[in-house]
C-alpha cells in the first residue's frame, strides 16, 4: 500500500480526474472531500462489508415461506 502524508487543505489526484482532499481533521476523525466524474461509485468500506454479510445470511432459505397477507 502506498502511504502519503497530507496536511489539511492538501489533496491527492488519482488518475487524471479524481481529487481527494483533506477537508478537516479533528481528534480521531478526518473529513475527506472527493471530486470525481459522475460514473465513479464511492462507498464506505464497512457499509459494503455489512451488506455482503447480510446478503450471505439472507440467501439461506427455509423450505416453506411464511405468508405476509391472507
Amino acid at each position, binding site marked *: 500500500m502506498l502511504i502519503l502524508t497530507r496536511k489539511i487543505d492538501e489533496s491527492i489526484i488519482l488518475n487524471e480526474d479524481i481529487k481527494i482532499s483533506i477537508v478537516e481533521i479533528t481528534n480521531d476523525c478526518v473529513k475527506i472531500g472527493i471530486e470525481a466524474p*459522475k*460514473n*465513479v*461509485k*464511492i462507498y464506505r468500506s464497512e457499509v459494503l462489508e455489512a*451488506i455482503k454479510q447480510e*446478503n450471505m445470511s*439472507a440467501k439461506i432459505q427455509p423450505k416453506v*415461506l411464511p405468508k*405476509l397477507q391472507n
Partner: protein
Amino acid sequence: MEIKTKELGLVNIDEKQIIFFPEGILGMEDYKNFALLDANNPPYFFLQSLDDSNLMWVLISPEFFRKDYTLDVQESELFELGLQAGVDTELIVFSIVHFAPMNNLIYANLQAPIVINKAKSLGRQCVSVNPKWKLRHNILEELKKTEGDL
C-alpha cells in the same frame, strides 16, 4: 426455457425473466445470471441464480410495507443500469428478504435494494445514500406502523 430452481424445482421461464447482473450481488460477485420468478406466494418474488440452482434470494417490493420508500442512490450506479440523462427509464426496485427462523422475524434490506432495468434486462444491487434506509427493516413491524397511521 426450463431452469432448475431451489424452491420450485424445474420451472419454465420466459427469456424476459432473465436478468443480467454485471457485478453480481455484493459478496457473490461471480454469479451474474439470474431469473426473476413469481414465488406463487405473494408478496414475494425469487431471484434465482442461473449459474447455481442452490443460490436464491427472496425479494419483496419495498412499497409493500414502506409506501414512502425512495431510491436514493449514486447517479453512477444508475448509469450502470443503462440509464441516460434526459431519458425516462422504468426501474423496478426490490428488497432482499431475510427470514430469521430462530426468532421468527422477517427482515427486508432497504439499504441495498435490487434495482432492475427491465427494458435492458439489467440488474444491480445498489447502495442507498439515505441513512433512513437500513439493512434490516422488520416487515411485520413496519406493516403494523402503517396500519396505525390509517
